[in-house]
Structure formats: C-alpha cells, structure tokens
C-alpha cells in the first residue's frame, strides 16, 4: 500500500513538473500574447494541481493536508479567472490576435511564424 502511494505521488509530481515546463517553453516560444496565454493558462492550472496532489500524497497529516487542499481549491478558482480577466482586458484594449491580423493584411504576412 505504501509503495502504491509513493509511486502515484512521484508520478503526479513528475507529470506536474512536465506540464509546468511545457508551459514555460510555451511562454518563451509562442508568437503572440494570446497563444502564450493559452499555453500558460492551461498548464498552470493542471500542473499546479498535479504537483499539489503529489504533495498531498506525500504527507498524510491532518492540518498540512487541509492547507494543501485549500491551496489546491484556491488555485483552481483563481488561475482560470485571472486568465479570463486578462484576455478580456487585452481584447477590450484593442490588442489584436495574430490570426486576425494576418487575415486583415490579405495574407501577405502569413509567412510570419
């Protein structure tokens, strides 16, 4: 039983770190703001959740567990809402997405990565 818990905890941590890393690569490499936000917003929630679950499996103590659960619930609330608000503010302040920009230019700049 102990072994199963340890292995699943390690798996969660590994998967969470991988997701966070892919989000980090996304924020560096992707071409415009909205695509970057998509990379970060998605991986942030899932990666953070997986890492926190992995930590919860590491330490089955009462108070620590409750605090980790609190952080998990708050992350699940906060991260998507922040991404939503950010995208909305960017759209309202006339930051045009890359795909729209290319269409408006008649495809002349569509060779841009």
């Amino acid at each position, binding site marked *: 039983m102990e072994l199963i818990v340890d292995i699943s905890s390690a798996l969660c941590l590994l998967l969470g770190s991988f997701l966070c890393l892919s989000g980090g690569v996304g924020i560096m490499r992707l071409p415009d703001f909205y695509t970057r936000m998509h990379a970060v917003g998605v991986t942030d929630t899932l990666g953070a959740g997986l*890492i926190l679950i992995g930590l919860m499996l590491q*330490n089955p103590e009462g108070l*620590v567990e409750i605090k*980790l659960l609190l952080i998990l619930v708050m992350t699940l609330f906060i991260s998507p809402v922040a991404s939503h608000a950010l995208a909305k503010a960017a759209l*309202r302040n006339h930051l045009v997405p890359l795909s729209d920009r290319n269409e408006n230019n008649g495809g002349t700049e569509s060779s841009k990565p």
Partner: protein
Amino acid sequence: MLIAATIAILVVMILGIIRGITGPTLYDRILAVNMFGTKTVLLISLLGFVMGRPDFLDIAIVYALINFISIIGVLHFSDSAVFRHDPHDSESTTKES
C-alpha cells in the same frame, strides 16, 4: 522527486522572468507576473516539504491570495483612461505586428 520538481519550477521561473523583461506588450508582462506568482506558490510548498517544515504552507496560501488580488488590481488600473490612450501601447502593438 521533490528535488526534481523544485528544479523544474525554478527553470520555469527563469523563463517567466525572461518573458517579463523582454515582453513586447504590457499584457505579456502581466501574464509573466501571474505565472511567476503561481510558480512561487508551488516552489514554497515544495521547499517546505524538502526542508521538512510544512509551516511554509501559510505563506503559500498568502501568495495565492495576493497574486489574485494584484492581478485584478493590474487589470482594474489598466482599464483606466490614462492607460488606454497611451502612445507606448499602440507603438508596441504595431511593432509586434
């Protein structure tokens, strides 16, 4: 495994800092700060486990809350008139297109 996860988070934080410094538009910077905040929460929880002091989780909770509040604050103030008609912003958007 805890150490590996900590190192991964540190690498992501470095990438976030780079985006925060170079970020062409204002929103890229806000995004970088937001991601940095989430990663700090994770880093502090992981460090608490690595060093065997789960008191650190209190700080992680504060971070999660403060991060949300400051992101909302940034968005609230970036809606105001001073920011919307700023020459810098349009300049940077055209530069990027």
